[in-house]
């Protein structure tokens, strides 16, 4: 004796199958959609990263170039100051040499006056202050040379700095 399914049970089974099919299709659709969205995000991210990289590189180059300019400018300004100070020192040394020379001549003239007035013999008159005056003049003349050497070096460095 065979079992005959009741028509109600058969309808229920068909409905369940239909729901299962629809659920499967929807799930498949959602999955495909997610994969598509993920691919879009991935492409977009790669594109954004590709656009950011050259900008980052340009920025790094610009910053490096700016730092280089800043360093060279600082060196040039520093050397300008050093040169200005060295040149001022030359003028001071030259003036001190002139003063020392004039003083030595004054000392010599005074010695001659003393001798002419019969106050002392000529050698003693010159000896009294002549040695000191000549020593000072010699030192001042050497100082001019030193100042000129320093200024010459500073000028050379200035002309090569900042390059």
């Amino acid at each position, binding site marked *: 004796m065979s079992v005959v399914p009741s028509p109600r049970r058969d309808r229920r089974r068909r409905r369940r199958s239909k729901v299962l099919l629809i659920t499967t299709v929807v799930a498949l659709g959602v999955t495909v959609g997610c994969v598509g969205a993920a691919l879009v995000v991935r492409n977009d991210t790669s594109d954004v990263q590709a656009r950011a990289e050259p900008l980052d590189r340009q920025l790094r180059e*610009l910053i490096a170039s700016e730092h280089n300019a800043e360093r060279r400018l600082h060196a*040039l300004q520093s050397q300008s100051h050093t*040169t*200005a100070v060295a040149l001022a020192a030359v003028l001071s040394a030259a003036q001190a040499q002139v003063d020392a*020379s004039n003083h030595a001549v004054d000392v010599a003239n005074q010695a001659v006056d003393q001798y002419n007035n019969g106050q002392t013999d000529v050698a003693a*008159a010159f000896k009294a202050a002549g040695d000191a005056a000549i020593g000072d003049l010699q030192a001042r*003349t050497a100082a001019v040379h030193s100042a000129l050497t320093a200024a010459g070096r500073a000028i050379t460095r200035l002309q090569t700095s900042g390059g």
Partner: protein
Amino acid sequence: MSVRERETARTDLARAQRDLHVERTTSSGDAQTLNRSLHAVKAIGQELTTLKSGGAAIAKLDDQDLATVRAAVQAGLAGQFDAYNAAVDQRASLDSQHDTSLEQLRQQTNTVIGTLNQLTG
């Protein structure tokens, strides 16, 4: 690669664009000042060279001055009045040349110092 990474990449791009713009517009000052300063130093190049030669001339005149003054004092110590007078005359003849050269050097030096002080700011 997540959505968060994508947002990070977008943020990085925006930051890079903004930083680059800021760098370009605000930080080229030093480069411009450097160029102006280099031009200024180049412009006084002739004066700087002249100062070197002018300084050398002054140094030579100073040496001659020292030699004549020393000769005068030594002649005085030795009681040699003719030699003394000759040395004094020789120094006097150098005087005007020395004064002129020194004044010229002073003017040139002050001009250069003025320019250099402007560079130093």
